[in-house]
């Protein structure tokens, strides 16, 4: 790997999702030097795992492709993938950041021809598809991966498959000798944008995510729609691969709850409304959707979207948080509860349940210096002087639009710090 040069006039952006990309590009296009670190083999984050995004229902390629093009064109950003921050010390204007870079075992020569993938046979759970599908030990994270460069799973490096992959590559791109690297970067400001992970649905014991095949999470549902995804783009019941006829969505599954995430994850209401449009698009009148909710939080402009879905005769809304789920016949499940509009007790049968699980912040413990204020929801507070700024879902539960705005604001604050440093150094 070539030398990474950083000074205290450099801005470090951690996390290459839509927020990190936005912050890095905004700062770089202002002429600042930026290092962008991404833990995964590709940037793009969770947005690249969505089928479409609300409110306009465009495909994620649309927003991301523009960012990738800006990234490719900009000399001021240095992107490091498979890189993770292990510690930060110092203060605004002068941070020391230690970084661990994991070996990809594939170098810049890779043309993404895919010969190595064909040559190997061992398969692993595909992280990009939340384990709903397998991938080979030599793989591209997704068709949209950036950089378009293959990865060799460390678990095959020492075995036959490693040798086969190396042999198959005509461009000498497979390098099984690559080692883990430790870097130490001196930077002036940090934008922290490591985003979110789906709240672990199995922790919501009464909903039986771990007991019933046909209880899935909203991120899994999202993957079903991808033509390259685990079901080839079809909405199906995991138990038998059949098209469902009667889907339930359970809102606030693990959010707004003292026992789970205390915060409102803010996007799951809209995500569910959006997902009902997928059902309409694919299954039409053959499938009904029922949304169980406490209150629908589709704020300001996106309320129009809420009204549009409400007008759909195939979508029903039940004002109630489901108390628990029990098993029914034919791998169906029964949703039990009492509704708030009249206090009627119900036991409703559905053939597929989507838990609208929320977003859990991934701000790590014990990595950031003590001056950085992290609130009870594990989001970075908008503290102005620490020199480390949370962006996107590291600062709050946000949709893409708001995450990008928030990231731009974080970039501006980081720019102020390095500009101040530049002024002092003359």
């Amino acid at each position: 790997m070539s030398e990474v040069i950083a000074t205290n006039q450099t801005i470090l952006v951690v996390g290459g999702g839509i927020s990190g990309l936005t912050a890095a590009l905004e700062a770089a296009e202002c002429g600042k030097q930026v290092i962008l670190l991404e833990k995964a083999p590709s940037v793009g984050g969770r947005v690249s795992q969505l089928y479409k995004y609300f409110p306009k229902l465009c495909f994620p390629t649309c927003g991301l492709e523009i960012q990738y093009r800006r990234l490719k064109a900009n000399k001021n950003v240095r992107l490091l993938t498979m890189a993770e921050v292990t510690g930060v010390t110092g203060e605004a204007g002068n941070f020391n950041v230690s970084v661990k870079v994991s070996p990809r075992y594939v170098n810049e020569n890779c043309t993404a021809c895919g010969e190595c993938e064909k040559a190997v046979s061992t398969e692993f759970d595909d992280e990009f598809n939340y384990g709903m599908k397998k991938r080979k030990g030599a793989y591209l994270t997704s068709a949209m991966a950036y950089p378009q460069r293959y990865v060799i799973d460390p678990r095959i490096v020492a075995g036959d498959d490693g040798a086969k992959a190396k042999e198959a590559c005509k461009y000498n791109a497979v390098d099984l000798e690559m080692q883990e690297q430790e870097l130490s970067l001196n930077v002036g400001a940090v934008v922290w944008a490591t985003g979110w992970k789906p709240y672990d649905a199995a922790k919501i014991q009464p909903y039986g995510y771990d007991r019933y095949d046909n209880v899935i999470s909203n991120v899994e549902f999202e993957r079903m729609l991808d033509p390259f995804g685990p079901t080839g783009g079809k909405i199906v019941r995991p138990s038998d691969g059949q098209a469902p006829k009667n889907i339930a969505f359970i809102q606030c599954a693990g959010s707004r709850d003292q026992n789970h995430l205390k915060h409102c994850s803010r996007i799951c209401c809209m995500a569910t409304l959006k997902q009902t449009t997928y059902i309409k698009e694919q299954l039409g009148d053959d499938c009904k959707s029922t949304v169980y909710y406490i209150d629908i939080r589709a704020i300001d402009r996106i309320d129009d979207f809420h009204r549009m879905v409400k007008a759909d005769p195939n979508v029903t809304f039940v004002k109630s948080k489901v108390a628990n789920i029990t098993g029914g016949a034919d791998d169906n499940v029964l949703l039990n509860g009492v509704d708030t509009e009249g206090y009627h007790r119900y036991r409703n049968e559905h053939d597929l349940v989507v838990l609208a699980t929320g977003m859990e912040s991934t701000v790590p413990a014990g990595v950031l210096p003590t001056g950085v204020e992290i609130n009870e929801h594990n989001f970075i507070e908008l503290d102005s002087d620490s020199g480390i700024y949370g962006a996107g879902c590291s600062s709050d539960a946000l949709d893409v639009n708001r995450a990008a705005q928030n990231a731009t604001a974080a970039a501006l604050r980081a720019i102020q710090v390095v500009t101040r440093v530049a002024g002092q150094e003359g």
Partner: protein
Amino acid sequence: MSNPNQAMVEKYRSNFLKEVEANVEEGHWVKMCMQCGVCSGSCPLGPHWEHPPQEIFMMIRAGKREEVLGSSSMWMCTSCYNCIARCPRGLPITHIMHGLATYAKRLGLQPKTQPTAKFSQLFWSNLTKTGRVNELKLGLSLYFMNGFANGIKTALKMQDVGLGMYKTGRLNPLEILGGHSIKDTGGLQKMLKKAFEIEEAKIAEYKG
């Protein structure tokens, strides 16, 4: 009161929420309920409630004093704690239910034929007399709670249980003569009387 507006205001005065907050154990939690319904759906006694907890909390906020305090609902609670375990807002629902029941009883508004209310009174009288529960007398008064004939029937039915308890030392027939007690029964009575007075004074502030 001739003005119908005034009459409505009087009917729905939100003072009842304040009254509950002041006089009912854990009553200050009632306003935290977000009406999600998880407690109602989680209660194993659910189908037998006149009003599930979620509805009770809304009725309190709507000022339905007589309906709430006269309801049999709180008396149905078996303290399984399912609702507390699941409530997303952390309301101590079980405790509020018992608090409401106690308060209704104190005001004499509880449903007159409610068996749990009757039993609770028997238990309380039994316990406070000597400071110790007299199992034998409590058992007997429970058997005869619904009349003499019923009592004999229950006593016969429970014979084996009674014998078993006797054999394992859980039931002493001599208890019928008065039974064991704490050292200072008089002191206990005084304490309880004082506590009762303090509660009465508090209740007087909000008593409808």
